[in-house]
């Protein structure tokens, strides 16, 4: 059904959409997680995780 072959979507591409896109609903109705702050929090988390997982810049060549 898709025009191009489906391969596993890269996490960054996914987060570009799921954390920076999509309808944001804030207010008393929700638990207020879908907030802009989220993007910052997660990117910090990502960066530190990536750094922790890849101690050497020469370790992993993709």
């Amino acid at each position, binding site marked *: 059904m898709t025009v191009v072959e489906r391969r596993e979507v890269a996490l960054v591409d996914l987060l570009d959409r799921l954390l920076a896109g999509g309808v944001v*609903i804030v207010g008393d109705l*929700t638990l207020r997680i879908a907030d802009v702050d989220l993007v910052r929090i997660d990117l910090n988390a990502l960066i530190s995780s990536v750094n922790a997982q890849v101690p050497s810049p020469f370790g992993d060549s993709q």
Partner: protein
Amino acid sequence: MTGLRYVYAVCRPFGAPLQAQLTGVAGAPPRQLVHHGLVAVFSEVPASDFAEEPLRAHLEDLDWLTATARAHQGVIDALTVVTTPLPLRLGTVFHDDSGVRTMIEARERVFRRTLERLEGRVEWGVKVYAEVSPEQAQSGTPSAPAVSGQPVSGRDYLRRRSTQARAHENMWQQAEEFAGRLHATLCAHAEDSRLHNPQNATLSGAAGRNVLNAAYLVPRSRSEEFVELVDRTKDESKGGTPGMRVELTGPWAAYSFVEEEQT
């Protein structure tokens, strides 16, 4: 019924059933809540993981975030097969059904208008990377003789440095021009576009610097044409502008186009 409601998307009612084995976040199957002629697709999730505090903590955990993002996307993908979903941002959680209903009522008009606008459209992501070869980055222009180890005079050294800097500058300028041209071409074949922030190479693990990270809204019926256009550009970039890499992702639900036009 003590679970919270994790809502993935709002859609118009759709006839076709979702895949029976589909699981959403927290391994829970997606369900539908119909209200005022709109459908909220949600999973019941445990408060122990999805209440505000635990959710915030989980979002700092890359493995958890990855699993949740992929599960969320899995549901959106499945919806995209049967309808045009209006995706909500990751982590939109309500206390109960009545919270979901109230949200639908409060935004009914905007939802309908947006669903109307996005009907039959998908999003394509296009990224351009400028790749600097390690030799270029370290030892100046490709034409500079590779005379490593040989002593150089101070003047030669400075000359080489300035050539190197100029080459570098030219390269970025070329990269920006290439990306600008491509964006203009693709815009002419899309209904709408959005520019995302360039991706950080540490996060993406991609080689080169991300100079364009854009999303294009394209009718499903014209997607094949759009993909072919991007493919042609890839070939051109190989021939005409060396060091440029074009990447296409999609089709996505129209995540980047859910907001009304802001100009």
